[in-house]
């Protein structure tokens, strides 16, 4: 059962990560079933019988070592496939930054999330920034850069429907990206222990169409200027 069975895919790379998990699952699953099958088979086949002595096999000779050596080389092949697949996904998600349509600042602290949205001018650190607590608004289909900051201890910014997770480190600004592909309201969770309120650090991400988002922005700006 893949991850998508438990939790929906709402970002451009969620399916890539789920497929990688499938690939790893199939490859290691094959070896798991095979080795357990051989293992239990041998236990049954070679149960002690009166008068039957065990065979004397050193395992040091070439034709004997083959029985371990060949599976061993096949495991290596599987390993290489997994490494290549894992690195490809990783490079896309974490190592490369596609150009940003919007930028949002995410600030973690004991025990709340603050979000700074760029506002109508599309720029951070200007007068029309929209600040929210524990609720983040994004437009569907837009590439977002997020800038993570912590005011105190380590936190971790996790959006399960995006398959996105990144630790937040005090003293650093960590930049990452996502592109939402589906409308909806989902969890943002802190996934790094951050003190006694770690279990009380949920936030919500609201994924909206451009029209809905602009309306929200306008309403927020109106409230702020009033």
């Amino acid at each position: 059962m893949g991850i998508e069975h438990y939790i929906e895919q709402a970002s451009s790379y969620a399916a890539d990560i789920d497929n990688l998990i499938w690939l790893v699952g199939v490859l290691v699953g094959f070896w798991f079933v095979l080795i357990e099958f051989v293992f239990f088979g041998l236990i049954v086949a070679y149960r002690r019988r009166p008068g039957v002595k065990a065979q004397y096999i050193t395992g040091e000779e070439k034709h004997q070592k083959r029985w371990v050596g060949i599976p061993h080389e096949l495991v290596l092949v599987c390993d290489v496939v997994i490494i290549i697949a894992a690195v490809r996904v990783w490079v896309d998600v974490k190592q490369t930054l596609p150009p940003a349509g919007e930028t949002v600042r995410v600030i973690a602290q004991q025990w709340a999330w603050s979000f700074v949205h760029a506002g109508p001018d599309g720029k951070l650190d200007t007068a029309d920034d929209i600040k929210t607590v524990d609720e983040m608004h994004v437009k569907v289909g837009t590439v977002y850069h997020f800038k993570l900051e912590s005011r105190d201890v380590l936190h971790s910014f996790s959006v399960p429907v995006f398959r996105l997770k990144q630790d937040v480190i005090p003293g650093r600004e960590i930049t990452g990206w996502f592109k939402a592909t589906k409308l909806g309201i989902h969890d943002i969770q802190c996934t790094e222990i951050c003190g006694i309120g770690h279990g009380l650090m949920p936030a919500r991400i609201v994924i909206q169409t451009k029209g809905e988002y602009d309306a929200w922005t306008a309403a927020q700006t109106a409230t702020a200027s009033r």
Partner: protein
Amino acid sequence: MATPAQEHSHAHDDHAHGADGHGAHDHGHHEMSFWSKYVFSTDHKVIGMQYMFTGLAMGIIGAFFSYVFRMQMAYPGHHVPFFGVVSAAEYNSLITNHGTIMIFWLAMPVLIAAFGNFLIPLMLGCDDMVFPRLNRLSYQIFLLSALVLIASWFVPGGGFGGAWTAYPPLSAKAQYNLTPMGSSLWVIAVALEFVAFLIGGINFVTTAMNSRAPGMRMFDIPMVVWMIVIASILFMASVGPLIAGAFMLLFDQTIGTGFYDPVRGGDPILWQHLFWFFGHPEVYVVLLPAVGIVAEIITVFSRKKMFAYKTVLYTAFGTGILSFFVWAHHQFIAGIDPRMANVFTATTVLISIPIAEMMFVFVATLYGGSIELTTPMLWALGFIAEFIIGGVTGIFLGSSGADIYFHDTYFVLAHFHYTFVPIAVIAVFAGITYWYPKMFGRMLNDTLGKIHYWGTIIAFNGIFIPLFLTGMGGDHRRIYNYDNFPELANDRLNHLREFATISLVVLIFFQFIFIVNFFWSLKNGKKAGNNPWNANTLEWVAPSPPPHGNFAELPNCYRGPYEYSHPDREQDFWPQNEPA
């Protein structure tokens, strides 16, 4: 070297009772001879028993902690029998100390120190460790470390609750963790424990290299001794940076330095590197002795020579060396340069090569055997069957791309419990049930042993298979109540959490059967004789239990440890000390 020679044939009941009394820290009513015999002894067997009973007692505490927080997981906010309502602070402290105890105060003392102390001189055919007083000092420091850890739960503010990995700044500043004294005592306890094992490790390596029976060549050393030696070397090579790291953490906590404080030029990630540079080899530090125990048992009860002894040895060295180059897979998403993840993905996934080889060799050893499913053999086979699950699920986490989702979820937790429970529980029971006759001179009850085995194995899978599923569903770790996360507070996940908790209660219940069997058999078990399993290694030459000095006459060694079912012999075993 050792204390003056004791009576060689003291009643074994006396011995067992004494060891037990010590484990419970209850020795006030005994007379002086008891103190010199059991408390300040330099005898490797007594020190091994001290480590074993202290470790198992700590293990009981660690298991109780897991019961409390699992109950909170399944029934959040409800009264937990024998504890009460769990607060968030208590919850954090319970999970932190559960992890700390199970790794540092159960797995290490029992697997390395207890079995290492008891077995190394006996299996090498010598009378004691090379440095018996260092050995005693090692245990005393270890006991002190355990007392400091226990004390840390009862100070104002309560026990440390920043997870067993103790990442700063949370662990470094009282204003964040709210446990000013608990967190400092925790660091001190861990550092003391490291000192104890450094001293012990020097002793193990020196003894194995210098005190072998005449005729025992390097490749005649039983695998479990090799494994404990390699583990000790790994520990010594990896722990230095963490001891330095622990002191820096202690200074940050107590005298206001800023090693991990970014405001003053420090870096919290530094701790993670120091911790995991030790922490990952540490996995193999406890794995290798467990593998060694399993190797001894599988060969004896399949009456087989170990398949490719040298290959096993080389894979152990290979694993050990490679284990120094994988640590950052714990930090893929921790803020390290993302390009580094590619290197560590490769090394991490490749460590499956020596480990898979090791498992293949054990499976191959069964081929052509004459397998008897005794209780120790069931534990040893159970180790392999279960550890493979831990091994293959590790591949998901070592694959950087997949770890983005799995990091810090219950999938990780279930994965490493499928490695650590086979190591610290299954292999420990394998070792205790196998060497119990040597330790106490009597056999354990086999029926009770098998009931305990099946109860434990089935319940163990009942705990952690559901937790793989909750992890896939997104449950992340160290949350004391999922009700606050709408995507995690659903019935499907709640039922799985509840199932895991019930399985844990069942698992704990079955441990009482072991405890009953253990103490009942001390007095009522069948007398074991020197070599009840018809095994080859030298510890079975000594009387059961071995007296002070171990052997009436120190044995010579004529061959390797696994010459079972040799075609030139009528008997299906060939003890190492028997002349050709």
